[in-house]
């Protein structure tokens, strides 16, 4: 056995200062945007002064070492953090220029416009049909059964699942394979016809083939939706996204075109991360 030598460079991340975000965090006419975003869990601060725009019909990838606050930031965007009593979010956040934390904003309506797909596939213990129809029923999007059938069918088609399940719509969604379950969850999110879809490591529990299917799917979805995806796989970020945001210890270090981030990163920390010096 060889002795483990402490890697000097691995430690150096703590010495590198983060002064604001480098690159291009802002775009013209953004779909969503955050300014001066801080997030606290009780006394502990998880996000420090994040400023970021998300453009229309883009896929933006969020990468960074685990625990750096990617999920926390993503959940700011549809107010999922509201469900955690100790969580406090500050700063300005907008969707189409409207303040999403404003008094007038109804979080239920916001979540209908900003859908979410979670890390672990989480279909309801109901039939495939009822899973997809759930959101449409909740918000009264279909006035009769045949309209609902259409919503379910078109959502399943968009999620690339329809062919596989069209004869089993009454079987439980929990009986599908992991990859199918995740596509079912995507279909369920699409059925509400959201404008933005947030995905928190949607393929981390899936095998490579299922992952490839979902990545293909994202590429198609980008035509109609704006997507923010958190991923721990840099290859995935490189494959699917147009822009990439690198988070480090709760701070947004760098945002740039994905090509640039992976070939010529501006910040030393980003370079350390993508070259695998820590993470």
């Amino acid at each position, binding site marked *: 056995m060889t002795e483990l030598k402490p890697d000097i460079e691995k430690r150096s991340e703590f010495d590198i200062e983060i002064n604001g975000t480098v690159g291009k965090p802002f775009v013209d006419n953004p779909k969503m945007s955050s300014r001066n975003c801080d997030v606290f869990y009780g006394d502990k601060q998880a996000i420090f002064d994040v400023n970021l725009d998300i453009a229309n019909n883009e896929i933006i990838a969020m990468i960074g070492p685990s625990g750096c606050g990617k999920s926390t930031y993503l959940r700011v965007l549809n107010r999922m953090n509201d*469900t955690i009593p100790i969580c406090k979010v500050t700063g300005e956040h907008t969707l189409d220029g409207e303040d999403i934390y404003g008094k007038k904003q109804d979080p239920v309506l916001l979540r209908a416009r900003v859908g979410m797909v979670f890390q672990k596939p989480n279909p309801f213990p109901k039939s495939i049909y009822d899973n997809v129809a759930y959101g449409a029923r909740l918000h009264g999007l279909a006035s009769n059964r045949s309209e609902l059938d259409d919503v379910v069918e078109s959502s399943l088609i968009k999620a690339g699942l329809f062919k596989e399940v069209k004869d089993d719509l009454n079987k439980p969604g929990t009986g599908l394979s992991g990859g199918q379950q995740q596509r079912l969850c995507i279909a369920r999110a699409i059925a509400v016809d959201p404008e933005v879809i947030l995905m928190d490591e949607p393929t981390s529990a899936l095998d490579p083939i299922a992952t490839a299917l979902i990545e293909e799917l994202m590429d198609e979805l980008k035509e109609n939706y704006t997507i923010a995806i958190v991923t721990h796989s840099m290859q995935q970020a490189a494959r699917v996204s147009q822009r990439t945001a690198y988070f480090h210890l709760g701070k947004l270090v760098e945002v740039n075109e994905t090509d640039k981030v992976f070939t010529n990163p501006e910040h030393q920390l980003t370079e350390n991360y993508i070259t695998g010096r820590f993470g």
Partner: protein
Amino acid sequence: MSKTTKKIEANLKKRYAKEKRFRAYGVVSLLISFAFLAVLLVTIFSKGLPAFQQTYIKLDIELNEKILGINKDSDEDALFSASYSKVVKNSLKEMFPGIKGRKQKRALKNLVSKSAAYDLRDKVLEKPTLLGTTQSYWFLAKDDVDVFMKGNIDRTLPESDRRIKDYQLAWIDKLMDEGRLEKRFNTVLFTEGDSREPEQAGMRGAIVGSLLTMLVTILLSFPIGVATAAYLEEFAPQNNRWVDLIEININNLAAVPSIVFGLLGLAVYINIFGVPRSTPLLGGLVLTLMTLPTIIIASRAAIKSVPPSIKEAAIGLGASRMQVLFQHTLPLAMPGILTGTIIGMAQALGETAPLLMIGMVAFVSDIPTGIFDPSTVMPVQIYLWSDSPERAFTERTSAAIMILLGFLVLMNVIAIVLRKKFEKKW
């Protein structure tokens, strides 16, 4: 083999030995508890089973209108109050002529239960054409005859030590010879209310009383308990001093001796709110207090065990907190909630102490028809019968315990069926 492997191997033996010993302890303790259960069940069943049979006596009754004190054109009222007991007595007298002395005459009359006269009356009212004829009927035998027939009186004992005297034995022998004594299934146990006469005493009143009481209890405690649990788990502010205080109190309430709830019921429900005493309504109110903590604690555990990922999925789709609760959390928690509820109800069904405090121990022979009627419940009935001096009540006590156990088993079966029905995999 490397050194390390050898070391591990040496240790393995010890580990397996330990495991074996542990398993042996488990088996032994299991056997002990089974032995206790077996002893309990065998005692109760061996004592109680005979009570499901009852001795009947066949008499030839001459429905003589003169003796009955009526005539051809008597109306129904007269038929109702005719002296049927006299006819029954005459029939016995005819069978055993020449009996002298008040004591023996009374003993003769006491071969047959008092219910014979009522039976006869019902038969005549149903079919007045029977009047003037002679009919053979089976009537309930008196408890002493029944006890003797079941072999619980030793005829070899000296007469002075026996409840049945020699002349009575002679009558019984004669009746047996003529095939006039027979043991049959004891329907009285299920169709009649309580009675001072053992052979006429049944569980019906107590069973109906228990069911009505349970109805009140479940209608109150289930919704209140589930709502409380849901509020505490899903809506109450966390780390709030008041919420913590409430939680601690609920957990403590579960440990309060049940008789205290009886006292509380007496002081609050009866004295302040004037709820009628001895009624299923009052019993249900008191038992609700007792069952609530059980239901709340079980429901909270069930609600807590619903995977957060399911709730997040619903919230992420724009469900409100109410919708998440009613569409996902509660349905998924239902098996656990129902199990807790039925455990609580089973406790309540077997509870005696608090009901003694609120007057449900009174002697009630009528079968309650609603929650405002005075009534008793099964465990109290058991208590009352076990306290009665008559030998015949001893076996009825065990029979009542068997019926109560039957209901408890039934409730457990319902719990299992419901759990199976609601259980879903995720």
